């Protein structure tokens, strides 16, 4: 075992070269405690980005989360028979055991989709006319039409999709990946969250580290002010002062360390050094001036919002904010960030669906398609998993909520919804799963959220059953007590 000063050297060097997540005494201690790591011959440096269970395909993940539940039969899952049955009642047998958020069962009728679907790419994947840009990338995409979840209310549903259980206080996928693998970013946090739109049902619980230490929690990059809270020096503290001040802090901390010999002080020094680097790296990250004109145009970062009213899409400027976030996601991944959440709220179209879904789709389609192409051109798509998804889907029934004059929207639907994945070891150009003729139930290849999570971890070289965290006497997993890897998704 190394003596303390060596540990400090090691810690410092390591912070400078390999990790951006703070590793404190706690981590150090748990490594000591974790006999397996020390017994394992492969663990050369316990402080580095941690080794996966087996060879990974993906190194980073961009999870685009369309909060509120987009309507799958208007985007991804064409249902010509639903259009024919428009206005008809469903047999009671289908709705008898079903709970709805707002639909009144006795008078609900099916609602067709006005969207036109067309086949695209070599694979012939059918997408709606709301997604013209994405249509060009279908051969990179694995579209799942057979996702299902246990939850039909937003916040529990969002927790389920992010944390694997509909319960507050659990770590999200990004926290699990950073816990399992560490991060390769030298100057930025391993888990970054980008928001646009009107604000999420789940708020900060969606990128929580739950019972894990706070260094695994998502760091929100803001759309205004400092990109990271408290990134800028206080007024009056010049760059020179900051530099000199940090020097003094670290110096005094070292003096203290000579006295108390606590390795935690070495971690503190490393944290300050990393914070200092973040002060440069984060503004550099959000500075798009070095991006080419073609890139900026491809993402559409200067697009104006169309002048249609969309209460749910968020205030003005969403088109720009979302495009910028997609571009930032690529820049984050380029810099070694492990997990990026790109949120937009909301797609909760209980009413005015045709108008507002169009608004949202116009906002999202071009930047997302640009992101896929951009990643591919830069050779990053092979190692970057891109996910497009939400907490659940929407009903084929029109929503006849009490008090609604006209039926112009759909209610929540947990039994079947669509989601797509691309890159990072996912086999593109395929459609997985199938729903019945009206999109009510899955008829082939059901994929539960726990399965989806197991597959994500697999792509990162992690066995979902072995990636555990002990809390309150129990070994917790992202996949709770279920989950199986969806082999069809793997390239």
């Amino acid at each position, binding site marked *: 075992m190394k003596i303390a000063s060596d540990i400090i050297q090691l810690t410092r060097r390591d912070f400078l070269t390999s990790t951006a997540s703070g590793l404190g005494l706690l981590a150090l201690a748990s490594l000591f405690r974790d006999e397996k790591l020390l017994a394992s011959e492969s663990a050369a440096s316990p402080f580095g980005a941690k080794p996966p269970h087996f060879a990974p395909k993906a190194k980073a993940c961009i999870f685009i989360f369309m909060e509120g539940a987009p309507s799958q039969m208007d985007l991804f899952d064409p249902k010509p028979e639903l259009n024919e049955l428009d206005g008809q009642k469903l047999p009671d047998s289908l709705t008898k055991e079903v709970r709805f958020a707002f639909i009144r069962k006795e008078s609900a009728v099916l609602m067709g989709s006005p969207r036109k679907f067309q086949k695209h790419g070599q694979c012939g994947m059918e997408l709606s006319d709301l997604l013209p840009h994405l249509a060009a990338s279908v051969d990179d995409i694995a579209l799942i039409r057979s996702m299902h979840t246990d939850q039909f209310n937003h*916040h529990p549903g969002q927790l389920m999709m992010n944390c694997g259980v509909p319960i507050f206080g659990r770590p999200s996928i990004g926290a699990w990946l950073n816990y399992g693998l560490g991060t390769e970013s030298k100057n930025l946090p391993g888990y970054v969250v980008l928001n646009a739109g009107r604000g999420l049902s789940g708020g900060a619980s969606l990128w929580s580290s739950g019972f894990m230490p706070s260094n695994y929690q998502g760091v929100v990059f803001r759309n205004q002010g400092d990109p990271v809270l408290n990134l800028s020096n*206080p007024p009056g503290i010049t760059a020179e002062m900051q530099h000199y001040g940090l020097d003094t802090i670290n110096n005094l901390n070292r003096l203290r360390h000579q006295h108390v010999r606590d390795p935690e002080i070495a971690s503190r020094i490393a944290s300050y050094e990393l914070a*200092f680097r973040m002060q440069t790296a984060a503004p550099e990250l959000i500075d798009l001036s070095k991006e080419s004109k073609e890139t900026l145009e491809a993402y559409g970062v200067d697009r104006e919002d169309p002048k249609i009213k969309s209460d749910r899409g968020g205030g003005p400027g969403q088109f720009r904010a979302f495009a910028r976030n997609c571009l930032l996601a690529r820049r984050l991944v380029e810099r070694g960030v492990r997990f990026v959440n790109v949120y937009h709220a909301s797609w909760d179209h209980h009413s005015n669906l045709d108008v507002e879904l169009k608004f949202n789709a116009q906002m999202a389609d071009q930047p997302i398609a640009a992101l896929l192409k951009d990643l591919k051109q830069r050779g990053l798509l092979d190692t970057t998993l891109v996910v497009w998804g939400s907490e659940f889907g929407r009903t084929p029934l029109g929503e006849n909520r009490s008090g609604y004059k006209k039926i112009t929207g759909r209610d929540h639907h947990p039994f079947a919804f669509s989601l797509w994945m691309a890159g990072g070891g996912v086999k593109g150009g395929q459609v997985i799963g199938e729903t019945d003729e009206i999109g009510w139930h899955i008829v082939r290849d059901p994929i539960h959220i726990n399965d989806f999570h197991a597959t994500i971890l697999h792509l990162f070289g992690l066995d979902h059953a072995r990636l555990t965290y002990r809390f309150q006497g129990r070994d917790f997993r992202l996949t709770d007590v279920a989950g199986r890897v969806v082999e069809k998704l793997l390239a």
Partner: protein
Amino acid sequence: MVLAATVCGAKAAAADAETSVDFKRDVQPLFVERCVSCHGPEKQKGGLRLDRKADALAGGDSGKVIIPGKSRDSLLIRNVSGVDPDNLMPPRGKGEPLTSNQVAILRAWIDSGAPWPDDAIALASAQTQHWAFKVPVRRESPAVKNTDWVRNPIDAFVLARLERESIVPAPEPDRATLIRRLSLDLIGLPPKPEAVAAFITDPNPGAYEALVDRLLASKHFGERWARHWLDLARYADSDGYEKDGVRPYAYLYRDWVINAVNSDVPFDRFTIEQLAGDLLPRATLEQRIATGFHRQTLTNKEGGVDQEEFRCKATVDRLNTTATVWLGLTVGCAECHTHKYDPITQREYYQLYAFFNNASEKDVPAPRQAEIDAYKREKARWDNECDRLSDELSSHWRGDFSAVQAAWESGLSRPRVEWYVLQPAAADALEGTTLKIEGNHVIASGKSPAMDTYEIDFETGLTNITGFRLELFDDADANKGPGRAKNGNFVLSEFKLKVVNAKGESKSVALTNAAADAAQPEHPPANAIDGSNATGWSVNPQTAHGQVIIFETVQALSPEGKLAFSLVQHHGKEHTVARFRILATTSAPPFTADLMPPEIARALAMPATQRPIDLARDVAKFYREEVDPGTLDIKKRIAAHARKRPAEPPTKAAVLAENDQPRKTHIHVRGDFLRKGDEVQPATLSVLHPFQPRGPFPDRLDLAEWLFDPQNPLTSRVTVNHFWKHLFGRGLVATVDDFGTRGEKPTHPELLDWLATEFPRLGWSRKALIRLIVTSSTYRQSSVVRPELGERDPLNGLLARQNRLRLEAEVIRDCHLAVSGLLHDEIGGPSVRPPLPSDLTSIAYANQIKWKNSEGPDKYRRGLYTFMQRTVPYPMLMTFDAPDSNVACTRRERSNTPLQALTLLNDPVFFECAQALGRRVAAMPEADTRQKIRSVFSSCLSREPIQAELDRLVHFHEVQSRLVKNSPATARALTGMSDTEGENFEAATYVALARTLMNLDEFVTRE
């Protein structure tokens, strides 16, 4: 074995102290914990059982698995060590592989001949023989060599162990360190420099104990130790989930905890009041507020949720939290299936669930004294004005109105429509209102349900009825109007009429052309006959007098039977009618909804001189009270004043209350609340001591008392372990939340048991127990890391020193505020919202979370008063590992991250603290630079700098002065003062110096 033991912490250190492997101590628990769920009494995968000697040694389908003396040839070792990845035990998905240490134990056991004493009890009872399920045994404190070191029995237990290991305890640090440690641990604030100086020079031999007593008596002690408890209580100021509504009075419970801790309410009573305060005889309001412990559960008010689902979730949380906090058991697994590792069946889980299942959530008025006083003052002022207005009206009515009345009468035209009052025969309400018939009026009284439907029958001889008139009367009280809602309003959803003949056959009568004297634009009169209960007619704010609505019959009606009217009032919130009568007419339409009663109209039709005296009086009264402009003016002012009635104190406490009608409890099959299994009755865990309820229907109070049964092996152990953790950074049982078979074993089992028996002996006094611990030599050791023990005891399980601990989030904030002098140290009251940038609060649902930055002194309150909005937790607190308040937090993480560095360096609150401290020091009269630097230093760190530190800071001062000089703008920015006073280069320099010191590791550490 040796290699493994050197690196695996206290547990291994403990094993290392003994040289040989002991079956009962080392091997059997491993089998129990890791193997027997598949190879035991319930399942025998591969034909193997490891819970019984004969079966285990006989082996399974593949033959022998244990070959005594030959671990290398034993299949057991081959499979658990992972040599053959295809045959790994436990299999993938069934648990982590065994650690190398565990494999080493099994190997050593087999190599030593696999001794399996016959008295090693069979596994079925092995779980029940788990150490933590046995009543603690109080042992004499062991003999030690260095008796001088022993201040109390704690030390004897710790030292005996150290002496066995030939380790000398760490020395006591200097007094500056001790007072800082004690202050941070006991009150969560750093000591003031004067207090440090006084303590250092205190010659009294009992100076330390006196300091402890002073701190225990401080009102801030309650804040510090309440916060520890609030972690367990998952305390928050909002509901959680999408809507995350605020709970403005959640603080009542938080303040209850602070007060209880400050007044040292014994832990048994402290517990009983929180779990079952409502069930105590003659429960006081404060005892009911204590039940707020279990009102910290989440509430989901998202549209379209099934409330029963979330009620069940909250109940599950109440049970799991109770088990975690008091029993140190993770019963949660048994929600869906019988516990794999601990002896808790799913049936038992729901028996425990039953205790909480019968509780309902109630919000009871809990006005604070200040509110009551303010309300009484306001109400008295308001009452006075009521009296004055009422006097004004009476004196006005004493005037002579004959001339003005005559002038008014002369302008009236003769009414064309004759209305006949119908005499009600029967009146009945469907939802619980009491209807009385008085003369021709129907009067509602008694219970005031949210909605109701009135059904009134009339007999009439009228034929060719062309219309009906419903008259609603103002209630006598000035505060009320024609409706029973709080504001005197009502909503008439539907006005329906049927004719019922003698055979009981009924026929609906169609009505049309509804008209009223007054109506709210969104509640027009036509709504009362539109066939929908969702709409209605309503009149707010015209509630100061009676109201009238009239209807025409579509066809003239000559009823063959009685008239049966229905007044449907489905708006909710008691929007029902208070008093009314119904009239009919045979005149030709149209009708006007004139407020004048038909009796008066008829009297007015006669010449004034021919009116009988009583009619003349009625007309005069009607004029005086309903028509006269002077009267109407005063009435208008009365109505306006009535609306200003002071609101009763709004504060309500969230409490639990027992249902009168017990709710049945069923097992939820696989934890699904919709799949009901067997019905169960409240009962405790069979593995623990017997349950002796007070009566045949056990309730929460019985459960709470069961926790304090002298036979309860867990409550006291778990609780003293929590206290120990707060004072040493680590529990004697490291898994403070798991005393089950999967938890870690105590590092000092005899000490744990001694403390567990001492706590009740001390009358469950929190203060006495803390005093006992902090006055021990064990606690008083230096925390300087001892590299020579780093390998043997990396986690300091042997307690050969104190631990250095990063401060908790709230305490870091408090230290900044305290040192800067900005702290506003008021105790209790509503939670506050320290300033946050607005975009941070807008991330939550549809930008609906309102975070109104607190102003004035509330900006500088202690961290524990920060409003906990569950979906937008205060970022600084989260960055420093404060709990998210969703489940009980038994142990906070102590991470160390760059975001923490950015927060300490740049958070405006902390910079403001540096500014205040820097300005203060710069203003010290007649001090030179070195003195001032010493002053900032000791303010921040409670000690004098060593020479090297001082030199470094002097140098910093020089450089910083140079950087500030010549830039008044920089100086102004640094001092935070925009005027010329801010152009103080010295102050600006000390601001930067203070900021540096407040960023030191030592500043955020308890040594």
